[in-house]
């Protein structure tokens, strides 16, 4: 295999990991922009999506199972998200740090529930046969480059979701409300925006998107009770790098984290890559403490 093909393959890997991060982090970032709270149980929405995919495919076998699983996982995770927002997060949102701890408690309960229901070892989702192909280049400058269909499928889903959410935020009335509450909650509320409802809708939209990411995770490996945990810490770092509630910022930050990890792993092992990623984030915030995209505001306390 050629050097350049390996490099391009690694960049491609980075982008496909980044597209998972963006799906996982999007809900966190949007809700953080609105309510200034972080949902530590967000990783369990990925897990829920994975298990829902497993259940759907066992009911609807065949090539279309995975396509049916996507809306099912979205709806299931969005519903659980709405319940969580209504019962825990909204009650505590005046105390962001306490929200963090309470939602961590929720995440422990959900993990244990999954362990009791499905077992600690995890379940395997078999990718449909139409995803079991690879694109291989056997000639030209990138000879030896292979791109699995599953990775391309991830890119496709992430692209569609990002496009849909960009449309929602920029072209619909709900999107207008979201941006308004994001910029100035009291003024938006005074203008008649139901900020409470906007919070609830955005939160459950975000958890729904995380559920979609869970379906994709299920294609890549077994779904275990702690599957969300391995993706959630990078997703938190994406939120920090991305800036408050910005779609573009979150996307750029996901690409940064995904590519950084994929490229650094050429030289060092996975655990050292994790340390270097943290070092990278700490250095980055020395220069841009507000993240990639800064919303200009006169407010002192963000």
């Amino acid at each position, binding site marked *: 295999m050629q050097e350049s093909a390996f490099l391009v393959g690694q960049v491609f890997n980075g982008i496909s990991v980044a597209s998972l991060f963006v799906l996982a982090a999007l809900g966190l970032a949007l809700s953080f922009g609105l309510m200034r709270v972080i949902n530590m149980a967000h990783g369990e929405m990925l897990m829920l999506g994975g298990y829902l995919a497993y259940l759907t495919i066992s009911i609807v076998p065949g090539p279309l199972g995975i396509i049916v699983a996507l809306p099912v996982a979205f709806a299931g995770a969005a519903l659980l998200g709405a319940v969580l927002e209504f019962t825990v997060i909204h009650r*505590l949102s005046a105390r962001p740090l306490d929200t*963090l701890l309470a939602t961590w408690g929720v995440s*422990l309960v959900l993990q244990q529930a999954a362990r009791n229901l499905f077992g600690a070892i995890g379940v395997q989702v078999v990718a449909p046969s139409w995803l079991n192909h690879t694109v291989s280049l056997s000639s030209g400058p990138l000879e030896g480059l292979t791109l699995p269909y599953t990775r391309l499928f991830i890119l496709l889903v992430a692209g569609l979701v990002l496009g849909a959410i960009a449309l929602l935020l920029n072209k619909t009335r709900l999107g207008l409300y979201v941006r308004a509450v994001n910029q100035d909650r009291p003024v938006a509320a005074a203008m008649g925006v139901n900020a409470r409802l906007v919070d609830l809708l955005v939160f459950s939209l975000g958890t729904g998107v995380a559920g979609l990411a869970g379906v994709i995770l299920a294609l890549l490996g077994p779904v275990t009770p702690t599957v969300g945990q391995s993706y959630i810490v990078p997703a938190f770092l994406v939120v920090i790098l991305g800036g408050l509630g910005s779609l573009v910022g979150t996307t750029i930050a996901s690409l940064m984290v995904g590519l950084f990890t994929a490229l650094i792993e050429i030289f060092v092992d996975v655990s050292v890559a994790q340390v270097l990623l943290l070092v990278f*984030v700490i250095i980055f915030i020395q220069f841009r403490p507000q993240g990639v995209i800064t919303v200009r505001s006169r407010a002192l*306390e963000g």
Partner: protein
Amino acid sequence: MKISAKYYVGAAVLLFGALAPLFVNSYELSLLGRFLALSILAMGIMLIWGEGGILSLGQGVFFGLGGYALALHLKLEGLNIANGDMPDFMVWSGVSSLPYFWYPFANPWFSLAAVVLIPGIVAAAFSWLVFRRRIGGVYFALITQALALAFSTLLISQQAYTGGFNGLTDYSTFDGYDITSNGAAQVIYLITFVIVAAAYFFLRWLLATRWGIMLRATRDGENRVRFLGHNPLPYKVGAFTIAGILAGIGGALFTLHAGVVSPALVGVVPSIEMVVWVALGGRNVLWGAIAGTLLVNFAKDQISSALPSLWLYGLGALFILSVSFLPAGIAGLFKPGSPEERVYRRILNRRKLETAE
């Protein structure tokens, strides 16, 4: 002058703690010693979280740095390094010579100093880098969690140098003294007890000084502190450094009691568990941090051995309930005027009314 009841309670607790080796059996004494070591760390969390408003989800890192700093020495004890002797696990992993960073730890005094200095320096450097760009609140909590994750995965992956997943265990002596006997356990317990008391009185004093007032002011209104012409950075970095040092000392003592230090004690989950001890005990009250640590850990010891899955549900519920309904913790129940105390009193009064009727 009338001495209020709480001083009698305090004196009784001190007396009980000091005399515990006389009437508590050795297993329970070892548990109590372990949990008291953890409570040193918990007092640090009380300082940064309750008084400084800084939530750290990575105190396990400093706990681990302290624990490993001592454990490196304990592993080298009795080995002839000049001869090329190496700890057992390195021989098994096929390391050819002792890694350079292990050498200084052959000296017990270096190791004891490192227990304090390494967590202190790491905590100071890390918090300065983050706080100087005014990153705080939720962001800081998330970065500390990433720190805990990075630290524990690094320890696990560098198996040949750190003992990997199993950590460092199987110690026998410290500076020539046997540390495994029953008598040694009592001495270690008493040392722990004295350090807990010293940390308690030090923090009590510290929080009453001008510095403590400024720390609370920073928690309540960082920008107002700035407007008044003060720089909040030294208070936040200082508090985080003290908390890191306390965590390191707690880690070293815990290592002595438990006879092991491993990544399972320093990762993401244990680090956040440490916060719930303080949340339950009371984040604004020093004795609350100690009481919460002892309470949660004794409960964990009882429940998790019998019903492990119940313990995780219980821990999750503890997080949700203590934060939602008991924000000032158990200690809040005893604090006149706190919301918890008012609810508690209302229930009591209602009972009285009912009996009166």
